[in-house]
């Protein structure tokens, strides 16, 4: 008797369920090109529409995650089930992929230049190609700053000034490829310790550290925060869409190509190659000029072509100007070697300790304001000491972790050290706060 009365109904329902699932699997199994990318939705949607229309035999699908995570993603997937194309502005990721033989050569049939000014656009071995250029800088909301009578910043070092406290926003290096790039170019341009000092000071002025790159331009355009550290296109897309924001390339800044490459072990290499050809063609390059994308194409003819003048806003940055005014100091090899360590330091000292960092920074600013009114060498020494504790990396540039090739062992070693860095950051901030308050009390 048990179960008798219900058996037939469930059996038929099971069959229905099975059919349903087969049906939907059938839909998903059509010829698709999978592109892994960290770009915002607008870029992906525009390229998907244009590509799907141009090549009806293919359908583009995007896997969206921060470029910083491509390695762990590919490591999790065996050959044959990987995405076809990797498209990102994170140069480190491309180098890492290359080192792990996760790319295959694209060939040399494209018209895009291999070098513009002093900047290498393509990979020398032909594994990945530059598709657009981008540099980083500061963007600001003109109304926001005007309402508070704050002068717009010109470069990174402006952002450490006390009047910016609570008005700046940046993303996390470990969560956003572009932020990692900003951090790394500051570290390479200014040197390891001075660079960290600058970064941590800016972070101390930040109202919040957002989870993803896009939140930065997002909150600046909406006027939630005044100033953001961004890669150019995120700011320009807002500007050319009509928002009261402006952008300035900051120094030191790396002009980096956003590259595109074919993944080794791709499911659909032919489709992937077709997508890459499209992205590098004049048609694909022109898409970059759309206001909601606003990137710098690498194909020179796009800038000079006057056949479609409406494509390009009048004050659109010019490729040559941008490259000329920002001499690149960026060494991708150095960056790739310490990629994980830089991220881990940023996470432990900035992202996860941001509240403490803000409190310390406020205390230091308060003490310094008083100090300017009533000079006091003893208090000044205390403040210097507080700054030294708060605004440092806590890790020597010569640390052995920095030169090790990224590997499982390095990941494990970093996990072990992370705890130590986290504790150190906590005690540094506590001590710095104590010192700054002492100084403040002394000045009162």
């Amino acid at each position, binding site marked *: 008797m048990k179960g008798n009365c219900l058996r037939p109904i469930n059996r038929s329902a099971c069959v229905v369920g099975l059919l349903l699932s087969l049906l939907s699997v059938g839909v998903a199994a059509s010829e698709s090109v999978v592109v892994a990318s960290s770009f915002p939705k607008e870029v992906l949607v525009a390229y*998907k529409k244009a590509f799907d229309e141009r090549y009806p035999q293919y359908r583009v699908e*995007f896997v969206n995650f921060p470029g910083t995570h491509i390695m762990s993603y590919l490591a999790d997937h065996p050959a044959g089930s990987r995405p076809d194309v990797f498209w990102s502005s994170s140069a480190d990721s491309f180098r890492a992929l290359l080192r792990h033989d996760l790319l295959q050569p694209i060939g040399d049939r494209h018209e895009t230049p291999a070098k513009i000014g002093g900047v290498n656009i393509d990979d020398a071995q032909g594994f990945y190609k530059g598709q657009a250029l981008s540099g980083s800088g500061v963007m600001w*909301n003109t109304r926001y700053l005007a309402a508070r009578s704050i002068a717009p910043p010109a470069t990174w070092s402006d952002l450490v000034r006390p009047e910016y406290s609570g008005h700046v926003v940046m993303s996390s290096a470990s969560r956003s490829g572009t932020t990692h790039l900003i951090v790394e170019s500051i570290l390479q341009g200014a040197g390891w310790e001075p660079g960290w000092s600058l970064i941590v000071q800016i972070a101390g002025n930040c109202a*919040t550290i957002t989870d993803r790159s*896009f939140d930065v331009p997002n*909150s600046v355009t909406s*006027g939630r925060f005044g100033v953001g550290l961004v890669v150019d296109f*995120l700011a320009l897309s807002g500007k050319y869409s009509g928002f009261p924001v402006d952008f300035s390339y900051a120094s030191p800044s790396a002009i980096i190509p956003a590259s595109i490459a074919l993944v080794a072990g791709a499911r659909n290499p032919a489709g992937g190659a077709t997508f890459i050809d499209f992205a590098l063609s004049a048609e694909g390059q022109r898409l970059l000029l759309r206001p909601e994308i606003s990137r710098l194409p690498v194909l020179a003819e796009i800038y000079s072509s006057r056949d479609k003048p409406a494509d390009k806003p009048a004050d659109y940055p010019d490729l040559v100007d941008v490259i000329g005014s920002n001499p690149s100091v960026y060494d991708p090899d150095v960056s790739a070697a310490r990629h994980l360590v830089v991220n881990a330091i940023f996470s432990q000292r900035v992202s996860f300790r941001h509240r403490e960092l803000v409190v310390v920074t406020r205390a230091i600013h308060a003490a310094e304001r008083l100090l300017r009114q009533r000079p006091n060498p003893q208090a000044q020494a205390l403040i210097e000491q507080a700054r030294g504790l708060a605004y440092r990396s806590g890790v020597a540039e010569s640390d052995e972790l920095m030169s090790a090739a990224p590997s499982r062992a390095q990941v494990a070693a970093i996990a072990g050290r992370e705890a130590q860095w986290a504790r150190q950051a906590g005690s540094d901030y506590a001590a710095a706060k104590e010192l700054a308050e002492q100084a403040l009390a002394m000045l009162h």
Partner: protein
Amino acid sequence: MLFSVLALYLLAFLALPVGAMVLRGVTNTEGRFSTDHLTLLLANPVYLESLGNSLVVACGAALLAALAALPIAMLLWRHHVRPSIYIELCGFLPLFVPPFVLALSLQNLLGRGGALGWLLGGDLDPAILGLPSVMLVEALHYFPLVLMTLVMTTSASSQQACEAARLGSSWWRLMTRIFLPLGMPGLAFGMSITFLKAMDDLATPLSLGVTNLLAPQAFFRVSAYGSQDPLSSLIATLMVVISALAWLASIRLVRQHVSWRSGAFAAAAPSRRQTIVGLSCLGGIVMLYATLYAGVALTSIARIWSYTLLPESFTLSHYLTALGDERGSFINTLIYCGFAAVVDVLVGLLMAYAIDRAAPRWKTGLTWAAAGLLSVPGVALAIAYLQFFRVVELPFFNQTIDASWFMLPMAFSVRGLPFAIRACTIALQRLPKSYVDAASLSGGSRLRVATKIVLPMLAFGLFVAFLLCFGVAAVDLSSAMLLVPSETDAPVAYSIYLNMQSTTGRGAGSALAVLSIALVTLSLFVLLALLRPKSKAASSFRKFVFTAS
């Protein structure tokens, strides 16, 4: 045979993945038991702090929601105002709307950029407040649920309470002696749901820039170091343990089942004063929520809104984008959640049947286990799936499971299962054994009994179960964020989240959010409209059946 399929499902999609995940957390690379990872975890103050923060946020949200709901529920009870069933239903909306939408709405509203925040100029931006704002958002989001479960469990006896008061009992006595004990099951249910959901929520803290919670930390580790990372397993295990303890505690404290159907309430026509109190109270709440969601609503129709009180120019193009470009995500949601809900209804029906037929000593255990499914957080389940199904190839498809979207509906189905079991149990209760016996005695073939008697009598209950599971799956962002294989495969909730991230997508994301909230509300009301005439017949029929036996 069917029960082995059931066992297989539970084994493959719950027990084995979660078990493997727990094992990974407590074994070293040689596969031997070790506390290395635990030591590593405990050594890092960030993880300890995350643990504490998660507990604070989850407990705080549950307590805040309860503290806000209690006085209002008491007021309604005291004036024996019974909200209309439509308003009661609105109390369940939070289960079907992702809370991060509220977080983003508040950012638009209270941030310095626009509306109130611009007006006040202060630092009310939830992202600046950090942890407390996560707590507040969760509490605000789940407050209607707590309030309505409280109202539903107490309202049945408010009339009698009123009469008793006339006979001389003081109100205070009534409240402490009758209202609170009566409302306890509803309160505990609402609070434990709030606790579990707040613990599990990933999108809300990320939207608010809060990282030091368990769910984001587990998420970060998986995305930074890959799914095989043992520390993420350990964090996820920790979340499972905490959630399970919380759930057990709520069951133990109450020892009473929450009835999803409210008791019969023979309402005398309420007096004028009662109507005014009820309306102003509920009206106030509705107004509050309308205001809270105004941030998203305004953004969805704003073209340019930057550092002004209200958007400076309006457009409907975001809705066109949402309906055009994002049509795919609606279809995805339909496929995943539909698939998950079908699985849920089938498995839930089987489970409910098994529980119903189980020997008494098994029954309690099974019921608890089914309810305990609620306590597997989405993040933990997703991590378990990523680890477990990494190497499993899909047949006919030349693809591993984790590269396909197959894991997503399965995770959704596991997450929806407790609701499905509950709904199917109620559906089965409407089909006493004798109804089937009568049919088989009448000489009908099994197929005929199934199609003519069993299915029509269960159909309505199963439909409710389907919708419930569908809704729960549709907002399950915690597992979706980890398991969605590609942007084109994203369900609506995730699309909202992605859209909200970019400057120009914000409008479309908001439009999507508004559309989906409207859709959910609409479908709930349609469901209710379907339910109403039936429930009348059903309740009289139930009354008859159950008082007779």
